[in-house]
């Protein structure tokens, strides 16, 4: 199972980012999400939503085996094992393994589906 995004429907409201950040870190912000919304303004307009495809490249590249699959099959980072070596960040073809200076580990989508709940435009869905 993975997350899919229909770019053409996205209105760029960032609710998915806030819901994701709240789920992963308990913080309402747009800066700690595990997906990305890229605006294309002023020309041509519209948005691209980058989501994890669960390809597993991040886990394959992790030298400390810190990336494992959860019950839903999502590759996710075990914080205690992460050394912030950035191998997963470099390995991710979608650019959706995240890091910040003030977070001691990288993170990615755990397929919780909170982003889908708050999207009013049905951009996001979970499917095989």
């Amino acid at each position: 199972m993975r997350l899919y995004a229909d770019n053409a429907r996205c209105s760029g409201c960032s609710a998915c980012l806030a819901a994701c950040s709240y789920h992963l870190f308990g913080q309402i912000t747009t800066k700690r999400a595990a997906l990305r919304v890229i605006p294309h303004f002023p020309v041509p307009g519209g948005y691209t939503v980058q989501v994890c495809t669960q390809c597993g490249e991040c886990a394959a590249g992790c030298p400390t085996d810190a990336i494992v699959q959860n019950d839903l099959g999502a590759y996710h980072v075990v914080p205690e094992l992460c050394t912030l070596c950035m191998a997963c960040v470099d390995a991710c073809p979608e650019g959706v393994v995240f890091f910040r200076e003030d977070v001691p580990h990288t993170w990615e989508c755990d397929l919780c589906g909170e982003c889908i709940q708050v999207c009013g435009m049905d951009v996001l869905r979970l499917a095989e």
Partner: protein
Amino acid sequence: MSGYVGKLLRVDLTTGRMTTEPIPAAVIRDYLGGRGLGAFLLFTEVPAGADPLGPENKVFFSTGPLSGTLFPGACKMDVAAKSPLNSGYGSSSIGGKLAAELKFAGFDAIVVEGMSREPVYLLVQDDHVELRDAGHLWGRGAMTTEQMLKEELGEEMQIATIGPAGENLVRYACIHHDVGRQAGRCGIGAVMGSKRLKAIAVYGTGSVSVADPAAFLEVSRQAFQAVKSAETHEQWVREGTTKTTEWVNGTGTLPTYNFQAGAFEQAPSLYADVARSYVVSDKGCYCCPSPCGKYTYAPRYDLHIEGPDYETVGMLGPNVGLDDWQALVKANWLCDELGLDTISAGATISWAMECQAKGLLDASLTDGLDLSWGSAEAIWTLLERIGHRDGWLGNLLAEGSKRAAEELGQGSIAWAIQHKGMEQSAYETHSATAMLLSYMTCDIGGHHGRAWAIWNDISMGRDKVSPEKVDKVIELQHIRPLFDCLGCCRFLWVELRLSFDQYVAALQAVTGVKRSYEDLMHISERAWNLTRLYWMREIPEFGAAFDAPPPRFVSEPATYGPTAGVFTPRASMEIMLADYYQKRGWDANGLPTHQTLDRLGLLELSPWR
């Protein structure tokens, strides 16, 4: 208190000094935030009689307790200042992502005061705040400036900026943000311009605190679900505010030819289906599950804009006789880039067009420009001249319709369709007594935002003079501005029927403080009366005369459409206004009584009474 950061950023442009201050808990308790906070700060900080375009005026950017939270439509910020358009209370709401970003950066509000010698912009990156040279941005369009700053500082930076109109102190210059969101009304862009503050750029990595996360998550989920499953969701998302155009044309409330008529023969060429055919992408403000923003491309002119929204459609479409969607997009683009409020700009141009039609503006005064109704060329050229204060006519119209009419004279004030010096927005009120009362009593001037009572006119009997209508106007004037206190967009309540109970529950979960609907309405009434006190303080002769309707609606019949031949008897509005004053606890001259001020805890702020 959770939901709030508890801090404001004060920026003194004269000295370059920047300080962080706590916001007193009592102010939060009594005024909630957003519009309430802005009104309180304006009242208590800007000295009586301050020149709106002088160093004593200030600009207050205020978020609310729900701004930036994970609640549907929690995107709003109130921008307040003494209005350069009418020297009274100025306040304008702005969506997009600025409010949330400011909270993430660790501030509830920014207060800008003083006056810089050189053009500057303010950079807020969490606790790093800095005034930077804006020499390279001065003179540039608002959308261009936003783009330049994003290229300089990063795409995630949230920018609020003025265009040339603000720099040139056009009295209805707006503040632009997020490609197509504006704090449009009251000319606060000119206040920024007078201070030589070109822009504000905000980026924050913090978060908004919530007192009861479990309760908040539950109410938030319910609210998102309610909006998404609302019966009106599909149409609203497809059409946005342009869904209004057909309805107002059908009911004879679409301002046409400077409010001479309530319907426009060619209106169907501006209906929602036409608008939608040019839409590139839907565009939502922060956390909005029902985006009204429509990003549009007009191939004939190779122009992109967000919009046109209904207000712009009305004011720069039928009200100036324009019936071509792409030409309207270009007019909207010019307003956005120049940094002009589309409502006041449209109404001021329609006033000028009527002046020409009545023989008051000949070619020598217009530099040969033909101001015939519906001329796209005339509209575009006037917008450029206004934004740059180019020539006699550009300068005249940059002052707004009331001042322009006073300057031109010859009775032209009779067709300056304004209230308290601010142009009436896009609802035609020859036969809509509740909406007309709403405009007459609105605390910033001719704006629909406080009480959109036109619906009640149609449903209750449009020419009816009834106590129920007065009750409704007052109720709306308390509910709708509450959203501006909370920091939320009211459209989700108005259009998607999100229950107000959800806001009450969300506010409690976020702040940890239990407040009932009645408590919140009381706060809103306090803010309403405080803004009334502000008018009284700034304009010594302020009173009922300032609430009089534009003469057109009470003396000249509408010329076309469902209301053709109809106008509202002046006595009808006198009866409603007297009832309104009485119900508000104001005296016959429209001034709050001692008892009312006491009930609202405002006596302290009204020492002259």
